[in-house]
């Protein structure tokens, strides 16, 4: 292609962008609107800033920054990389793909302006977050001095720039997307290890100097040698931005088409509050797993067919088990290290619910296509549901049991916690799995008539929103209350050295409740969609 032809293509790209800009309805504020927004925003911002500063100002100590700062930024970077595997900072609509990316114009000519915009937004958001952190700092922003305050804002802004650039590098390469997806659970474990190291007295400086996530925190936390850390984060951000900009033409139309179709599917699901549909759309957008699937020997008894089907699904997608292990282990550690406290108990229950959700995916898939399920297996639904609970319950029992032993061995919980394994652990895990299984019955979809009634409610009436939330996540709420409540009771008992008795009582209560629910399901339910 000649130089003149390339210049012509660049001119055409500019003309096309100008054409679309001119014809699209855009909000053009008047001078008065800009003035009014600045005045009102300024006053409201100052009031809000003061309110936040008075309420929680000073809560951010150097100690907290050193322990949690690097881990939080590490997780932000991981999230940005994960985001790049299915969306990323550069996106087009399906119409853009059909009209612009199939035109005889270099794709980079359309990618570059969007990438520039995303990088700029990333840096500004990062700097704004740093500004909020300064407000919350113990001693107030003035305690840092002007140079360190500016370096703090610039450091976190540069980190955000790096995160956006890295997200684009993942988006623009199918190989990188696959790598990030496969490595994510291991990277998350590294994040947990980083937290453990940062929390130890000897590990403060290790966390700060372990990578860009630590360098960005250094000026805010006042680590000695912070100017070096700022220089390092600047170099890393500049290098990743240069590489990202050079790769502006690296992504083909396929990458953008897949993302555009995913976004359009997610939007459709969001409008109908179909979160199951949204989850399936998200999953279909992730890079496909390549390679041979591990085999599971066929069972001799037909009674074990569902267990075999669930085992096949698990070995076919081992990352689900890895994520479930992470969620369940974190939930166990959270509950054991904060015994008798309601919020950690609730967080632990939610973590266990998510872990069970990941392992119960085959049941959800069967319920998504009830006709297929009915064709393959003519079991009563209650029996099918119970059969699908077996493998997730066994797996979670093993994982949480191991986590309890690990926490005790590490000295983060007393030896009395080991008594929970033979007493209450199995009922707790089974109740969480049962709640997930019961949630699967509805396929995650909200009844259209109910949705219509809820949306027609007076928007000033908060009752409508509450009903909607109750309808959307009833089993997550039930798990939080039941499992979280059980964790709270047992935790209090552990603190008062009455663990065994309390655990046995809670176990009996949970087992009795679960049996009653199962009997109810067996008597009253029909197959979903049947």
């Amino acid at each position, binding site marked *: *292609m000649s130089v003149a*032809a*390339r210049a*012509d*293509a660049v001119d*055409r790209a500019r*003309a*096309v962008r100008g*054409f*679309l800009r001119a*014809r*699209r*309805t855009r909000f053009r504020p008047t001078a008065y609107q800009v003035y009014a927004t600045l005045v009102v925003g300024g006053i409201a911002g100052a009031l809000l800033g003061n309110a936040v500063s008075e309420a929680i100002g000073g809560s951010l100590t150097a100690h907290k920054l050193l322990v949690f700062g690097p881990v939080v930024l590490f997780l932000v970077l991981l999230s940005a990389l994960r985001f790049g595997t299915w969306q990323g900072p550069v996106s087009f*609509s*399906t*119409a853009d*793909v*059909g*009209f*612009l990316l*199939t*035109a*005889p*114009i*270099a*794709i980079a000519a359309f990618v570059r302006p969007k990438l520039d915009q995303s990088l700029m937004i990333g840096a500004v958001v990062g700097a704004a977050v740093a500004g909020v952190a300064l407000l919350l700092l113990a001693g107030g922003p003035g305690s840092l001095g002007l140079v360190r305050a500016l370096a703090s804002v610039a450091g976190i802004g540069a980190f955000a720039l790096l995160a956006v650039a890295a997200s684009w590098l993942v988006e623009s390469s199918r190989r990188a997307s696959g790598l990030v997806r496969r490595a994510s659970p291991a990277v998350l474990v590294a994040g947990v290890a980083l937290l453990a190291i940062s929390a130890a007295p000897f590990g403060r400086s290790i966390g700060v100097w372990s990578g860009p996530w630590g360098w960005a925190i250094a000026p805010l936390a006042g680590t000695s040698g912070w100017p070096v850390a700022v220089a390092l984060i600047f170099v890393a951000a500049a290098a990743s931005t240069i590489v990202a900009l050079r790769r502006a*033409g690296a992504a*083909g*139309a*396929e990458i953008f*088409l897949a993302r555009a179709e995913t976004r359009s599917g997610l939007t459709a699901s969001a409008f109908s509050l179909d979160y199951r549909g949204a989850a399936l759309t998200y999953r279909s957008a992730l890079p*496909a*797993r*390549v*390679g041979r699937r591990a085999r599971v020997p066929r069972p001799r008894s037909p009674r074990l067919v569902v267990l075999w089907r669930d085992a096949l699904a698990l070995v076919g997608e081992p990352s689900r088990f890895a994520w479930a292990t992470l969620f369940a282990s974190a939930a166990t550690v959270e509950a054991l290290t904060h015994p008798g406290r309601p919020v950690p108990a609730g967080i632990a229950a939610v973590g266990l619910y998510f872990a069970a959700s990941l392992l119960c995916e085959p049941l959800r898939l069967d319920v998504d296509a009830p006709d297929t399920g009915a064709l393959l297996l003519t079991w009563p639904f209650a029996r099918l549901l119970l059969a699908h609970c077996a493998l997730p319950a066994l797996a979670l029992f093993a994982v949480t049991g191991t986590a309890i032993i690990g926490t005790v061995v590490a000295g983060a919980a007393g030896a009395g916690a080991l008594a929970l394994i033979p007493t209450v652990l199995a009922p707790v895990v089974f109740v969480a799995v049962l709640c997930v299984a019961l949630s699967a019955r509805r396929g995650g979809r909200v009844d259209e008539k109910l949705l219509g009634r809820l949306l027609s409610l007076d928007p000033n009436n908060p009752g409508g929103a509450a009903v909607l939330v109750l309808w959307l996540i009833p089993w997550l709420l039930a798990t939080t209350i039941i499992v979280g409540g059980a964790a709270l009771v047992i935790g209090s008992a552990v603190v008062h050295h009455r663990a065994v008795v309390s655990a046995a009582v809670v176990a009996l209560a949970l087992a009795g409740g679960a049996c009653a629910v199962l009997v109810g399901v067996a008597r009253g339910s029909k197959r979903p969609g049947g």
Partner: protein
Amino acid sequence: MSGAPSLAVHGLARRYGGFEALRDLELEVGPGECVAIVGHNGSGKTTAVRTIAGLLEPSAGSVEVAGSPVHTEPSGIEARAAMAVVPDSPSLYPDLTVHEHLELVALAHGVAGDDTDARIDALLAKLELADKRDARPGELSRGMRQKLQLACALIRPHRLLVLDEPVVGLDPASQQTLRELLLEAKRAGVAVMLTTHQLEFARGVADRAVVLADGVVVADGPYDEVVGLGSP
């Protein structure tokens, strides 16, 4: 590259994870020739069209349009300049009118000039969309949106026209108009590749039929001969 075939496909394969949607596709379409790709649902037709159009990357093999490789830059730009694609489901800008869609295509392909409005109006009249000139996609029926996509392909110069299930949503009169437009394109030396389930529609237009089954070509020859065997 005037001696090169309008479309040359060699050893084209496409895999989705472990699933092979297209295997070892060999296809050449010369100027003024029309090839119909037929096959059951899931046989690989849309994958073939999307890969040839550059919307999917091939797992193996190559696609050249008028001698320019499609899947590398900057040669892909020249290939895209020579190819017009009509996708199976219309993706249009909800905020642009029918006329503005065609203006946009003319601009993007460097053919916008003083006569653009006149050419757009003539094309809209031919496709019976003249009275919808200022309508947005939301005000159009499925068939009208399909015709707009066709107009977007025809407004720009091309040596290869690729159509994926072009008759879906079209009434019999519009199908006849489409048939006439395709015959006109062939007479002008444009190579046409289309996929369809409607064998009767293709009979009047296609010179050759390529039958796909499970991503593999199982028959390739003169249309009447191949489709006469009753394959798809």
